């Protein structure tokens, strides 16, 4: 009985003194856009460790991954947030694509099954986000339903978002193409792999946090 009250009191105090200024920042986008590469870059820069594995085969991230208490320091200001790396959202998953990429049939089927669950979880977690970075592959066609659906759902929920065109280190990357697809948003060009533009992204995160806190107060 005493143990129960101790636990209850602990949870109550934890909630009471929880930093209400801390936000949950989600990384969303289609598969292979570079969400985990960006998550790794952020975690390496501010925690000294990586977050997850990356692969050239799509749907490497099939489970939600969360890193708590990441603190960014910039111009004397601090920003603490939880980073949520989500599986890439897709409208189709074909295990035969994984076989073509060199996987055994059994592994490919298992990966496809896990990937479908990952997409479902990513959609479910949308409601829990305070702010979202949409990570798009700057070398790919931005006019896809997945991108439109993610943006539309964040707008419908009034969740502040930042659009990032990743892989700008590659020749094929075209930020203007991404900007043309989403003229209502500012698009930030970065390379999570080389780190180009990531410093500017950190500066933008402060603005994103301010919008998220404003939304939380409503």
């Amino acid at each position, binding site marked *: 009985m005493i143990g129960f009250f101790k636990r209850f009191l602990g949870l109550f105090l934890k909630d009471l003194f929880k930093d209400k200024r801390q936000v949950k920042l989600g990384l969303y986008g289609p598969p292979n856009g570079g969400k985990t590469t960006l998550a790794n870059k952020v975690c390496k820069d501010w925690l000294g460790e990586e977050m997850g594995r990356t692969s050239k085969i799509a749907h490497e991230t099939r489970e939600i991954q969360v890193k708590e208490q990441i603190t960014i320091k910039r111009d004397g200001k601090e920003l603490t947030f939880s980073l949520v790396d989500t599986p890439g*959202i*897709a*409208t*189709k*998953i*074909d*295990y035969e694509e994984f076989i073509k990429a060199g996987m055994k049939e059994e592994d490919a*089927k298992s990966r*496809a099954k896990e990937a*479908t*669950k990952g*997409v*479902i979880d990513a*959609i*479910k977690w*949308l409601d829990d986000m305070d702010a979202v970075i949409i990570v798009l592959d700057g070398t790919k*066609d931005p*006019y*896809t*339903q*997945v991108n*439109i*659906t993610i943006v*539309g*759902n964040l*707008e*419908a929920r009034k969740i502040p978002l930042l659009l990032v065109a990743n892989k700008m280190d590659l020749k094929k990357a075209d930020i203007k193409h991404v900007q*043309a697809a989403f003229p209502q948003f500012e698009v930030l060009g970065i390379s999570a792999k080389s780190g180009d533009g990531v410093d500017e992204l950190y500066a933008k995160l402060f603005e994103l946090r301010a919008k998220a806190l404003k939304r939380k107060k409503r």
Partner: protein
Amino acid sequence: MLTLQYIPYIDIELLQSPQRVEKLLRIVKEEKIILLEGRLRPTEEAELIRRTMEEIDDSFKGIEISPLNIKVPEDQAFFRKLHGALLNFLLGNRRGLTIIGPASIVKEIKQDPDKIQLLTEDSSKPKRSSKSAVKK
């Protein structure tokens, strides 16, 4: 054979979101390409993706979906948007068209501001794809 099924907005107008999604998914699983009058709400699009993921197995690989919006000239943009918002409020989002097809048939729907390209699997030549374009 490629089967296209046109669904007028009136067919889904009175349905709740989950029922709309179920109806569309059922038709797509019958290997038909849907031409839906109007647009789904963003939350319905997300629900359609979520339900599609639940249905994926060895034979059903998922869907391809793309909306076709009417392009508004810049000089008319404000009044057309106002007009559109009013129509949406009164009648629901029935402007434009949404194409939804099974991924086993519709390989890709490419969209740019001026046209939509529907790339379908050519059953007679398994490795090639055929292309049809719809100008907006």
